[in-house]
């Protein structure tokens, strides 16, 4: 079971300030506990004050085929936007970022773990439910699950030929992140302040 919470209003506003935005909501699984009401209110505010090219509320964006189908009708709105803002769990966000690999895709949510049933994680995207989603700093590739050491401040010295030191069949997650940021013209994200994991989020004592 997962739980998504909205990032702070200031954080979300800073992601989209002065930009044309396309908003994507995922209401796929009930296990997600999506904060629908708060998200709606925030999106209304964004629409009133900012430049929203379109809003799509759909389900299962974590399924690439489904995502492709849903987004196909909104291509013009997406093309017109500078930023795609995704309201979903970490897996959904990664799927969207990978599919729209030349777009700046940002998540508005943090994904937390909840005791009980663990949602089935489809395909190659994995979210460790770290509770402080880093995807906006990493081009939509999860550093928690794509890096063997779950590093959040960049590549260790262990990658060889683009492969991880731990497993020569696995691509180095930070190499992928760096290349993705480079492609998106977002290498400035590497200059963000030092990130320190907060494990207290696990029991909501954040």
């Amino acid at each position, binding site marked *: 079971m997962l739980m998504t919470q909205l990032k702070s209003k200031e954080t979300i506003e800073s992601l989209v300030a002065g930009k044309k935005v396309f908003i994507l909501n995922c209401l796929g699984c009930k296990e997600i506990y999506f904060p629908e009401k708060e998200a709606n209110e925030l999106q209304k505010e964004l629409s009133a004050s900012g430049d929203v090219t379109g809003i799509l509320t759909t389900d299962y964006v974590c399924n690439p085929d489904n995502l492709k189908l849903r987004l196909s009708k909104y291509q013009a709105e997406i093309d017109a936007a500078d930023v795609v803002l995704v309201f979903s769990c970490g897996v959904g966000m990664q799927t969207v970022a990978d599919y729209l690999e030349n777009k700046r895709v940002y998540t508005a949510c943090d994904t937390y773990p909840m005791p009980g049933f663990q949602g089935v994680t489809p395909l190659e995207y994995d979210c460790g439910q770290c509770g402080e989603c880093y995807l906006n700093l990493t081009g939509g590739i999860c550093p928690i699950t794509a890096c*063997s*050491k*779950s*590093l*959040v*401040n*960049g*590549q*260790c*010295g*262990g*990658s*060889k*030929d*683009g492969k991880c*030191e*731990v497993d020569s069949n696995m691509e*180095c997650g*930070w*190499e992928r992140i*760096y290349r993705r940021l*480079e492609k998106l013209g977002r*290498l400035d994200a*590497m*200059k963000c302040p*030092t*990130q*320190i*994991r907060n*494990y207290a989020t696990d029991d909501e004592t954040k």
Partner: protein
Amino acid sequence: MKITELFERGEFVVSAEVGPPKGIHIEHVVEEAKTYLKGVHAVNVTDNQSSVMRLGSLAVCKVLKDAGLNPIFQLTCRDRNRIALQSDLLSAAMLGIENLLLLTGDHTKMGDHPQAKPVFDLDSVSLIHTVKQLESGVDLGGNALVGEPPKFAKGAVVSPCSDSVDAQLAKMERKVRAGAEYFQTQAVFEPEKFIKFMEKAKQFGKPVQVGIIIPKSAGMAKFMNNNVAGVHVPDDMIEELKKDKEKTKAGITGVEIAARIIKECKPYCQGIHIMALGWESKVPALLEQAGLSE
């Protein structure tokens, strides 16, 4: 003495690495260090290097310090969470250890306890940040330290011949911003690559010690090419090691190669860091041939 003071004085700083043994007897380690490493400014003590469990870095630092050497305490994030790391940093300061080399560390799977839990609560960048915070008299939890805070020379590593050198430079910048004051590099066998790297790295304004390994044989060189990240020994060097087996075995060829690399890199960096890997006895000859012994 803080290694940063040496850089400030404009010294070309030489350090060498010592690996603690898997056991409690270190007399020979100390003897070797006293005999062969007296010409170096500082001695790094590795922290369970390659994720192989050994005698502790901090304890060996203290023993070397008492023997008159200037230790650099290597500290990795693999085995300790932020509480243990900060506690060890305070212990180091109390024992008079002034130099740090702060690393993420190899994964536990690389070593002799692959079943162990990899910690990585912090990483190299957040560890540097943590040291800085302790130096300001506050721990990472925001609690005040009692009495005078510690003060260290904060070192970090970078891999200049890595195939993703741009990602390495980005990480280096993060380390500088977090508070790193000097850098030691992964072993360099391709001075051209190192020089190119330094053209970009010099913008950060931090001293860099080029990493030097004395190649012991063609087999070792090939092994490193296949297994060690960021290290590449070019073919002509491997040929050179193959040519005269006796000379190579005696360490003469390796010392010649390493001395040549040092001379080529010297104008572009602020020091060298020697990883002798058991060949500590060759260090004096290497320094002599590189024109660094006095």
